[in-house]
């Protein structure tokens, strides 16, 4: 009896200690995000005297400024949306089409082409920067949205993941559709796309996130505000009158706005979102 009691007491202490540790860790992870949100409700001027505490005066002024600065930063927000959405739609479509062929057709050169594509996954995308820049400059595509969209539309990882998934889709489904008179394209749209929807969605999330967060290439090819995505302009925000002084309230409002779309998707899907983000690493 005594042993059981002691065991139970120990168990409770251990449980409390484990929970306490985890709660502390969670607070540490959430603290910066909480700061970001709280500070976005302060005026820029208050950020210089009270950066750490709660706002003395809660205000939406910083959010308003996002829409005024530099002739309206909503342009940059819209740019980010256009770039990320277009890139996601195009890349998922291109990957799914090619993955269908690699998974369900036998054709000459299939394995060779596929292994060559996989081998290029080792090549860091940054390697293409000088080449792409020279080519795009010749085409006069520097400072356009397509210069930011096009280099992102052929992710081999997406092709690989979608093909792996399609390999497991039974051939009988395709045969049945063919007997019903479906052509190649109908089979793709009516059979392959609906059945592989989970991986298409997962990859879409992963890809959207990487394009939305992109910085290196956009910072080079988008030097005019008209075409800059939100990520490029945020670190450049300074006081329009004094210059050089970062306007922290406004910047934090921009950070919140740039996080919000992904955060909403994350809260809505949680586990699915998490597994899509780590899918590249888990699959190996």
């Amino acid at each position: 009896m005594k042993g059981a009691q002691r065991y139970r007491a120990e168990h409770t202490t251990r449980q409390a200690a484990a929970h306490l540790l985890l709660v502390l860790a969670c607070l540490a992870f959430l603290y910066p995000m909480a700061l970001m949100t709280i500070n976005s409700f302060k005026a820029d001027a208050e950020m210089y005297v009270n950066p750490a505490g709660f706002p003395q005066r809660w205000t939406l002024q910083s959010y308003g400024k996002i829409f005024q600065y530099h002739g309206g930063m909503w342009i940059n927000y819209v740019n980010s949306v256009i770039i990320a959405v277009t890139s996601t739609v195009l890349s998922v479509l291109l990957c799914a089409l090619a993955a269908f062929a690699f998974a369900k057709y036998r054709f000459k050169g299939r394995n060779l082409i596929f292994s060559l594509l996989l081998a290029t996954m080792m090549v860091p995308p940054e390697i293409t920067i000088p080449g792409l820049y020279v080519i795009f400059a010749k085409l006069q595509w520097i400072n356009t949205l397509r210069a930011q969209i096009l280099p992102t539309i052929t992710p081999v990882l997406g092709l690989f993941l979608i093909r792996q998934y399609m390999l497991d889709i039974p051939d009988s489904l395709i045969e049945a559709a063919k007997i019903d008179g479906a052509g190649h394209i109908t089979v793709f749209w009516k059979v392959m796309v609906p059945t592989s929807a989970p991986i298409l969605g997962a990859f879409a999330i992963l890809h959207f996130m990487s394009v939305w967060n992109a910085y290196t290439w956009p910072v080079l090819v988008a030097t005019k505000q008209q075409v800059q995505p939100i990520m490029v302009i945020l670190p450049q925000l300074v006081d329009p009158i004094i210059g050089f002084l970062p306007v922290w309230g406004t910047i934090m409002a921009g950070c919140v706005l740039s996080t919000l779309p992904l955060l909403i998707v994350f809260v809505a899907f949680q586990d699915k979102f998490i597994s899509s983000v780590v899918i590249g690493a888990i699959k190996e």
Partner: protein
Amino acid sequence: MNAQDVPPPGPTAFARLTCWKDLLAPYLFIFPFIVSFLALFLGPAIYALLLSFFRYAGYGKATWVGLRNYTIILNYDVFWIEMRNVLFYWIAHAIPMVILAFLLAVLVNAKVITRKNFFKPIIFVPQVVASVAAALLFQNFFGTKYGILNNLLGTQIPWLTDMDLARWAVVIVLVWRGTGYWFVICLAGLTTISNEIIEAAIVDGATAWQRLIRITIPLMHKTFLFVFVVDAIVTLRLFAEPNVLAGKPGTLAPVEMAPVINLVVENVRNAQFGLAAATGWLLFVVIAFVSWLQFRLLQRKAEER
């Protein structure tokens, strides 16, 4: 084959037509991807390889310089300083991050934790914040005059302008944002350890600590290696965090803090496309070596199973 098997002429023509379509279909399906891939990735990559043997300013004539771009970069102290920075960022953030991610995974996976699904998303959520936003957040946090930390401490410590301190600020951003990712990987690894082994150990009277040291960590150490190596490749491509944290608005970080990609970006900005391309390909050599290492390690892992 007898005469009856010979199909009538009409349907044959149709069959031949579908046959021709069947043959062509897969090529048509891969066509958009392959063409875009060649035009937007492989083509520019090979073009960059060619550029790396020329001196080219983006207009006029390109001059063949052989390997000189590579020797210039390899003899350029900035390249080595930036390589050293990247190595520092990798070692300094990967070790605490892996330990933290693993310990959190062990905690969340522990039987005593009743609300696993409450903690998991919270630990992961910094991953949702973009690198640029995360860096800005911490730039505000570590600011000297108007920073949050100095305000709380009542000090004026130059966290971001003293390079030795600022490098650690970059490490903190990387750990804060990255832990959730590797935490999920570790959690996935932990769930593959069979309960039987753990229960057998409990029956044998092993304490929680002994189980951690003797069973869990040895079974997980391949996962740690994987994390470490993959993280090395990610860090070699680092750009946003140090530049946003330590750069003034609109400029890149000073050399003492800059990652290697800065050399690519700066050379492109200065229209030194040959030098930029050579830097890129040198980076590829390093990444290829690391990938090869990873492949070898994973192969050993597969053999041991």
